Each structure stands twice: as structure tokens, then as C-alpha cells.
């Protein structure tokens, strides 16, 4: 049984585009996004669900894509960082990350953006503590937390005006 790589067909919608793929059953959603679909905005880092660099949205909820098999996503709608910008315009969070200097090396940024996006959808006017809790699963080893929280809060405030 071992040695032979087993595959299954799956159908997923990624950033609004329907995809039919044949995936190895032991490949994660992260593997398939990066390797098969060449969507390398989603980052591979800790692979144990602690750093959040691989955060994507599956059916409207953020998950660590390193902890989900691609076959488990069969039938799901997936949003990655590549799907945030529309018609060549950054989404408000992306713009705020630039404006507030929330990006240093940039490696954690896609995951931070996805977590922040999910937070604001669920809670459009979070306070600092709620932003910290919402982003607790996303590590930034450059230590940009202050700027990241500022960026998220600025979008929340702009939305309330």
C-alpha cells in the first residue's frame, strides 16, 4: 500500500475561480495552493498551526492551511491573499498595512491580512483587545504588532465614519 501515491479529484473555488484538480490525498491545502495552483502568497512556515503564515479563508472562516488536507477542502470556497485586491486596487486593509508601516519583511503579512479580514467581517468595530485576540494565531517575528494593530484599527474606524 505504501509507496503508491493515492490521488483524488476535487473541485474547489479559489478566489472566485472554479478549479477541478487531481490531488494527492496526503497533500495539504497549503501544498496544493502553492505547488499546484502556484498561489505563493500563502506562506509555508511552522507547519504546526502556530504561526498563521498559511492562513486562508475556507467557506468564510480562517484556517491554517497547513493543518488541512486538500481533499478536505473538496467543494469549498477558498479565499487567499491573492483574492483580496479587486480590479487592480488594494483592499482597505492592504492599503492600511502599507500606510501604517505594518509590513517589514512581509512574510507574515498575507496571513495577518486574512486573519484581519475575517475579524472585520465578523466584528467591524473591534477594540484593541479584540484585534489582539483575532490576530493571536499570527506571529510576526519582525515585531510589527503595534503597526499591524494600528492598521486594522484604522480600517475599522474608517468604516465607522
Amino acid at each position, binding site marked *: 500500500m505504501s509507496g503508491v501515491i493515492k490521488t*483524488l479529484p476535487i473541485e474547489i473555488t479559489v478566489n472566485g475561480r472554479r478549479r477541478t484538480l487531481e490531488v*494527492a490525498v*496526503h497533500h495539504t491545502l497549503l501544498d496544493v495552493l502553492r505547488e499546484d495552483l502556484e498561489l505563493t502568497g500563502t506562506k509555508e512556515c511552522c507547519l504546526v498551526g502556530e504561526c498563521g503564515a498559511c*492562513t486562508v479563508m475556507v467557506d468564510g472562516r480562517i484556517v*491554517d492551511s497547513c493543518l488541512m*488536507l486538500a481533499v*478536505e477542502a473538496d467543494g469549498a470556497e477558498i479565499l487567499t491573499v491573492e483574492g483580496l485586491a479587486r480590479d487592480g486596487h488594494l483592499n482597505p486593509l492592504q492599503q492600511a498595512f502599507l500606510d501604517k508601516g505594518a509590513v517589514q519583511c512581509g512574510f507574515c503579512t498575507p496571513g495577518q491580512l486574512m486573519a484581519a479580514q475575517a475579524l472585520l467581517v465578523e466584528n467591524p468595530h473591534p477594540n484593541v483587545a479584540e484585534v489582539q*485576540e483575532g490576530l493571536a*494565531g499570527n506571529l510576526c517575528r519582525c515585531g510589527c504588532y503595534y503597526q499591524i494593530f494600528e492598521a486594522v484599527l484604522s480600517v475599522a474606524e474608517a468604516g465607522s465614519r
Partner: protein
Amino acid sequence: MRTFAYERPVSLADAVALLDSHGPSTRLLAGGTDLIIRLRDGSARPGMVIDVKRIPELCPEIRERDGVLTIGATTVMADLAANGLVRRHFEALAEAASVVGSVQIRNRATIAGNICNASPAADTAPPLLVYGAVVVAAGPHGSRRIPISEFFVRSGLTSLEPNELVVAIELPVPASLTGAVHLRRTRRRGHDLASVTLCCSVNEAGVTRLAYGSVGPKPVLEQDETHVLANPSAPDDAKQVVLERMFAEASPSKRSMRASPEYRMAMLRLLGSRAMRTAIERLAEKRGAQA
């Protein structure tokens, strides 16, 4: 990651048949927040992974009928924490679910996975023990109900047979007003495994139940039949004697990296006293709200 056969049964009978014929070489996949890590690091090397998320009987659903709340096996922590019925009747369980991992983890980690993994640090274990949960398991000979106090055997081991799986968790809605709280101690705030977990409930009859985890091979449940703990006029030193007796089962490991045995015992006592106070306060609030 090594490859494996992947099965996604759409009926409970199919899942049980797969387990019955392949038993020890299979692993059940629910949220995957523990299993995928173990598949990757090689500490789990199953020939077959059985994804249980398309089995209707295990679906993520929380319903109340005849004084029993039934939680489908694949209900995730985020939904458990946000559910109105859980928050109303089982506040400590909602609290425990809300501190598991991060948002990303809580969106995937399931209640059945949390208990079947049988980690001594499982956050939902103490409240499930305190609330007298019953695990509904299915196997080739039908289903059976296992009291949660008989479910945990030791770290990584439950009383499930190799050909059984968890279908749902049942929680009897407390017959009398109950105040309860879940507390945990971690190395840092946010995303961490617990060094001590503790849940305490006090009801109108004066019965205190206390469950704690991460201080021994399995979570422990104790009940104070003397009513001393719940008695506001009982002297503090009398309460300390009772609490100390309840913590007799704690045996924290010397080998754990997260905290020393001395620290865990000290924190267990601290959390125990704090939880007692909060549970009594919450009970009083509920009495007030009813009056």
C-alpha cells in the same frame, strides 16, 4: 508526509465497517489540528485515514431536547463558544472552547477530537467532567453511552474500542441553578497549551464539583458532598482542608517542559480558590436574575 488511503464515508454504518475491518491501522480525521501534525512528523503512520466530517450523525449541530443538550461530534470550538444554549446552560464549557488555540484552530478543532486525543491538557475535559457529560459512541454492535468520567484512561488513551467512534456528546441541563467557571494557566497569554486547567461548579443544593487537568495522566473530577465549599459562612481554613483533599489526585510530571510540578500544584490551589469564588458569585447572580 507519508501517503495513506483516504476514506470519506457518508454513513455511520460505512465508517464503523471501515473501522471494524481496518481497526488499529486507521486514524479518524475530524478537525485535523492534532492529527495532521502527527501525520507530518511521523508519530502517526496509519494505513488509512477516515475523514468523519461527511457522516450525517456526526454533523456539527447543537440541539436541546428533553433537558439534554446534544453536541454533534464534529462541532468546532468556535461554534461551541458562540452557541446560545451552551452559553446559557454550560458557561464554563463555552469559556473553555473560547481559549483553545487561535481563531484558526478554533475554526477547525472539534469537540470529539479534543476528547479523543485524550491530552491531559484538553481544555474541554474539565467542564465536560463537571457537567456530567456522556459520550455517545458507535461500534459494530450498535451505540453505547460512556460517562465522561470513564472515558479518559491516560494520556492519549480513551476507553473507546478500536472499532468505535464518537457520534455526539450529551450534556444534561442542570436541574437546579448552577454557577460555573473554567480557568487555565498558560506560559503566555494567547496561543498556548495549558499548564493547569480547572473547572468549578456550585449549585443551589450546595454541591461543588471541581475538575482539573494537565496535572497528571488524565483529568480528574471531584465532588464536595460536605457542602463546606459552597457555604459562604464556612471558615476559610475548613474550605482549604476540603480543597486540599480534592487535589490529592494531582500528580504533575517532572519531565514536562511547560511547568514544574511545584508550580503546577501552587497554581492548581490558586485557580481552585479563585474558581470557587467566581462560581459562587455567578450562582448568586443567577439567583438575583431569577428573583
